[in-house]
């Protein structure tokens, strides 16, 4: 029953908003270049389906690659930090600097350095920078959260550092890491979009570029269609990572267990 409500209520709100929107546009005769009706957006989506899907694929590829790169980099860096306090103290400030510097400000540099002939690589690097920090932060905190008594016990049985890392620290870090990855998934998409905006005309072919292009041509319905696809992509990424989290934690972690009353 509660599950049904969880799905039905947001859906009902969506229907109400879309219906009201459709009605308002028709009633006040809002010009299509200001605010197209949902039906017009759906038509634009259908008319440009193939080209929009190609754009979606382009943005999605950058997003997924950036997310995977950020995950690998974030986890390996966190593992390196967990093995050496000195390394962590030395490098963590730079990770923070990377995080707090607006990526829009670094993006032009990266585009120049990587070169416009390798635009997708440049976009991926920019999106990776955006997605990297939450994974590093989550994994670093998680690896540090291992029960001291448990690691002491392992040492008592002659465990090597690698064994303690593999058997105790990494499983302890998993919930923290997954939480960071959930944030990073959304950020990778944002990073990809921002990177496309900065890359500008003629080079990028993703959804963000379609938004810029449609705006310039006053094809507002197509702009909305691209926007809707971006939002849907974000939701799918979040849902997929939530599913992964649930699958990995459902047997043991409090966050994934529904309390029996």
């Amino acid at each position, binding site marked *: 029953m509660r599950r049904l409500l969880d799905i039905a209520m947001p859906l009902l709100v969506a229907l109400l908003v879309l219906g009201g929107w459709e009605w308002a546009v028709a009633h006040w005769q809002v010009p299509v270049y200001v605010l197209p009706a949902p039906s017009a957006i759906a038509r634009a989506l259908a008319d440009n389906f193939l080209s929009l899907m190609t754009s979606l694929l382009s943005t999605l590829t950058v997003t997924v690659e950036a997310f995977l790169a950020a995950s690998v980099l974030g986890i390996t860096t966190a593992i390196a930090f967990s093995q050496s306090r000195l390394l962590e103290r030395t490098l963590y400030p730079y990770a923070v600097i990377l995080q707090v510097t607006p990526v829009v400000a670094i993006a032009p540099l990266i585009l120049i350095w990587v070169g416009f002939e390798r635009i997708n690589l440049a976009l991926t690097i920019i999106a990776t920078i955006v997605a990297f920090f939450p994974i590093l932060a989550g994994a670093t905190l998680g690896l540090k959260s291992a*029960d001291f*008594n*448990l690691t*002491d*016990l*392992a*040492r*008592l*049985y*002659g*465990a090597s550092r690698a*064994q303690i890392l593999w*058997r*105790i620290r990494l*499983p302890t870090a*998993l919930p923290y890491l997954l939480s960071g990855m959930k944030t990073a998934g959304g950020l990778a998409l944002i990073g990809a979009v921002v990177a496309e905006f900065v890359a500008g005309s003629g080079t990028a072919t993703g959804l963000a570029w379609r938004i810029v292009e449609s705006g310039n041509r006053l094809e507002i319905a197509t702009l909305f269609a691209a926007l809707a696809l971006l939002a849907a992509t974000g939701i799918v990424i979040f849902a997929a990572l939530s599913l992964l989290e649930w699958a990995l934690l459902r*047997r*043991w*972690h*409090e966050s994934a*267990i529904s309390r029996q009353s």
Partner: protein
Amino acid sequence: MIALSGVGKRFANGVEALRDLSFTMGAGEFVSLLGPSGCGKSTALRLVAGLLAPDSGKILMPEGKPEIGFVFQEPTLMPWADALTNARLPLDLKNLPRGEANDKAAAALARVGLKGFERAYPRELSGGMKMRVSIARALAAGPKLLLLDEPFAALDEITRNALGDDLLRLWREDQLTVLFVTHSVSESSYLSQRVLVMTPRPGHVKADIALPAGRDSRLSPQTIESQRLISQALNEAGALRVARSDSVRASDQKRNPA
């Protein structure tokens, strides 16, 4: 034989946990280390386990460092692993073949009365059962020396008594040497052969009481008499006086069991 002589330990925060701690234990003995909270009992246990190094004094262990089983006050299980995997941890760390390790861990679980719970996760078990898994883990590697750090302190009395009886049975069956840290007079009077009474911090052994035979039940006259002896020694060690003046700081000491 295990012998500590003149052992001292001071922590980085300046707290002197132990000063001139000396005692000996023979093979197969069941010895309780009793004292007020914060007297350095846990520190002493960690020193014997080799998890800490003493600042001064000597710790003599038997030839060829015996296999040690360690049980903490908390069950200290891996929440992501089932009971069998938890009990198997020492064997996994020694890279025993999986099949052999599974058999030994399952046998250890059966010995503490957890047959049929191999696939249960810690969150599905009661506090007493979690502690049993913890004891099974300590037994899995076939230890000669069992070190227990107030293992039953967080349990209710009924569970505590049942686990105490199980511990006695395991001690007899395996001819273990047991060092049992506790702040419970009744527990030490029933379980152990000898009680070492410690002073408040910086801790050292104030009295070494060999308990009389015939303590077959918790209520036998010999057990009651032992409790009187231990309480008296505890009193003479200044434990009660300090406990009274320290009650304000009790929560602080709980967090810092040095």
